[in-house]
């Protein structure tokens, strides 16, 4: 195993680890705000949860991007070919 492979594996792990922090904090805030809104206005729960789901998917995409970068590093690394 040469050093490019070693660095690739380490950076894939780093990408997933640190890439999960931001979306996790963001999703937590989004869910908390949605809970607050539903508690204040239970009749708007349908609209709020629909918007919440779409918003969560948007936030989650950031973590998924990191995962895809990690997979590219592990399985389709252009430097190792």
């Amino acid at each position, binding site marked *: 195993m040469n050093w490019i492979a070693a660095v690739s594996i380490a950076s894939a792990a780093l990408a997933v680890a640190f890439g999960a922090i931001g979306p996790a904090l963001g999703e937590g805030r989004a869910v908390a705000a949605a809970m607050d809104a539903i508690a204040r206005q239970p009749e708007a729960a349908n609209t709020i949860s*629909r918007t919440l*789901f*779409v918003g969560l998917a948007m936030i989650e*995409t950031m973590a*998924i991007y990191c995962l*895809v970068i990690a*997979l590219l590093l592990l*399985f389709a690394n252009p430097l190792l070919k």
Partner: protein
Amino acid sequence: MISPLDSPVLFHVGPIPISEPVVITWAILAALTAGGLALRRRLELVPSSTQAACELVVEAVDSQIRDTMRVDPAPYRAFIGTLFVFIFVANWSSLIPGVTPPTARLETDAALALIVFFAVIWFGVRAGGLKGYLATFATPNPLMIPLNFVESLTRTFSLLIRLFGNVMSGVFVIGLVLSLAGLVAPIPLMALDLLTGAVQAYIFAVLAMVFVAGAVAEAAPESPSNERTPP
């Protein structure tokens, strides 16, 4: 370890390699079409339980389109409904042992995202004409043309990566846990995977609705079909 980024080739038709997700996609399409045709032959005024379940799906799709796009759902029902049903069935096809969902492969998701990309253009041009649609790129001012153009490409790309990443990571994690911990361990993860699959199908359909609604509303600001109805 098998890379999640490439798909195994099963056989060749002439020079064209036919891979595993293509065959599974064909099977899903055939099953959905056959089911739809069989159901259509037995439509009754007093619905059977199968017909009632399908009507429930159609009405759910209709109400989502009405809520999200604020237009009459009829012109969009076929497109959005097909996207939702296909992605839903494809995500849940992992329930059949030995089947990898075709949405866990990059190519299927790329095809779905491209369909949405061209559908946005098609619905926008149909609502406001070619000139009206092209003018939406210059809103709010012509300085935004490159940004709007890049946005329409990147959001297609993010649709693709979102669906691929979510479904593929589910399959990948189940594979890892299965190889580490044994036969029964991944069952809760599979349940979570089913939930994710349903949510992702819903999200994909809602985002397609939002993109189409944006193009239609901007291309034809005061057409009667675009009238705001109370939710």
